[in-house]
């Protein structure tokens, strides 16, 4: 195994406040918060960044990111982001949406932001469930998965199969950067027994930076991050992470779906 290092600024980040987050133990929202703030510090964009807080577990992000915020209605974050960016093009505008927000109630706003190559950055946290409201079915919920509104497992005959936001955007010409990454550490076997690799996090960090770079180049950037919701999946943190590794990732393969500026190769 090569010596991988995660380049995350240690210690206090300028782009973060001192507030403790409300995220549950094992939730990758906290990981993403740190990765984004780290990228904001490294790119030196905090003072010209506005975050659009979307409805879902990310709605309290204004307590954590030390930048300007607008809190949007459920699903409308891409439209609010677009409105601001169009009149203040010098700003960096981004949002962190959940799968219910982006792929269900706000699918139109997401698709049309991409279709127009709107120079904004959207991070989608896909944990396959409505976390904030207590574990209802999301469009991304795996077929057969138990949620509070699919207590006998998601029935594809009634609710269809998993909606893949990255694949939808992959078919849209205006989307400049579409990538699916994972925030979930993966378990691997080694001669010392099972260990966890942060390979996914390295790639996630790179994806965040690229997504900001694409916006700076005038393009629309979207990164979907596979995540867990151990509390609502009713699993231990480790079992939830294993679930992503064993099941989620098969339905939602990681990879770069669109990259019109070629930022991944640079």
């Amino acid at each position: 195994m090569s010596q991988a290092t995660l380049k995350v600024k240690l210690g206090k980040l300028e782009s973060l406040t001192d507030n403790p987050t409300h995220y549950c133990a094992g939730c990758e929202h906290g990981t993403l918060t740190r990765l984004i703030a780290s990228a904001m510090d490294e790119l030196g964009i905090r003072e010209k960044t506005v975050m659009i807080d979307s409805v879902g577990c990310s709605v309290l992000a204004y307590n954590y990111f030390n930048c300007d915020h607008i809190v949007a209605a459920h699903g409308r974050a891409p439209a609010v982001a677009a409105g601001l960016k169009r009149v203040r093009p010098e700003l960096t505008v981004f949002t962190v949406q959940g799968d219910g927000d982006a792929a269900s109630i706000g699918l139109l706003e997401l698709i049309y932001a991409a279709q127009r190559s709107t120079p904004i950055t959207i991070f989608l946290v896909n944990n396959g469930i409505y976390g904030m409201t207590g574990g209802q079915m999301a469009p991304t919920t795996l077929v057969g998965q138990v949620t509070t509104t699919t207590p006998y497992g998601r029935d594809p005959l009634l609710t269809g199969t998993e909606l893949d936001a990255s694949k939808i955007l992959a078919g849209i010409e205006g989307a400049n950067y579409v990538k699916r990454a994972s925030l979930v550490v993966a378990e691997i076997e080694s001669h010392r027994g099972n260990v966890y690799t942060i390979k996914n996090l390295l790639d996630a960090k790179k994806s965040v930076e690229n997504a900001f770079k694409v916006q700076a180049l005038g393009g629309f950037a979207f990164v979907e991050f596979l995540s867990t919701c151990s509390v609502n999946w009713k699993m231990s943190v480790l079992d939830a992470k294993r679930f992503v590794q064993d099941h989620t990732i098969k339905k939602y393969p990681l990879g770069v779906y669109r990259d019109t500026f070629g930022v991944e190769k640079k």
Partner: protein
Amino acid sequence: MSKQRLYLKGNEALAYGALEAGLNAYFAYPITPSSEIPETLAKEFGNKKYPEYKFFLQAASELEAINMVLGAAAGGVRAMTATSSPGFSLKQEALSYGACMELPFLVVDICRAGPGLGNLGPEQSDYFQATKGGGHGDYRLIVLAPATVQEMALFPRIGFDLAFKYRNPALILGDAFTGQLKEDMEFPEFTHPKYDVSSWATTGAKGRAPHILNSLELDYQKHYQHIGKIFEKYKQIEANEVLFEDYLTQDAETVIVAFGIMARIAKGVVNKLRPKGVKVGLFRPITLWPFPKSPLKKLAAQGKRFLDLELNTGQMIQDVKLTVGNDVTVDFFGKWGGVVPTESEIESKLKRLEVFAV
């Protein structure tokens, strides 16, 4: 365009009025009978006469358009969208958020017949939705009701001024009649005031604490205080920003209360009956919210009776009755479904009420 006389449709005049008022960004969604507004603004986009007009976009839905307006307003610029009744229903969500976040922007509703798809004829049936909040939660919009093409051109400026002065969404409530009516009008000279947005706009937290535009407050006491503060602001608007027209009410025994196109028709009736010695006048609320309570109360105290005229089944009459009290006679005459009453129909109503003899 100073002191230029033009022959325009109401919707076109409104679009030019918005440009003259220094419109920065327009977010469109087509709907009859308001579509001449985005069409005119699309045509004029890039015209060097309007250097402040920086962005025009046709959105994919009414929701997307109004949420883009929210984002642009958060950036501190003059942003606007126009729609008609079915679309206005879809705007309510964002209006609720905008009022709570105290965002200044301008929405235009060229009211048509409802409910549902209704038809393309004029109605004033969005009065409740416009003046009582309309979306969820407790809030008000500043509502202006133009009655002429001239006013369609003048009110965007008033709307933006009030929206920025009080940090609250403003609405121009027109109707299919004033929107489609074509008449001669004159543009006055406008200067574009620079509104100070430095204390709240999301322009990047450089050298200052972050600005957070938010309608979410999980601390009940803090939310109680926030809404209380907004309603203190509303009291200021009610005290200072009432607009109305008082036409031959001084010696009138009967006062017609009507707004928008209905006031225009009523004025014709007053002008027709006055030479016959009928003591009838017109009271026209121009701001529907804040509703002109004090001047109307004054007229009631002089012992006058009222006839409320509306293009609906009776909505503003609730505000009229609440204002003048139970001891004053308030009659109602309305048409709906896109039907507009003629002057003689209103005359007949006054006769039936024995305001004057045949």
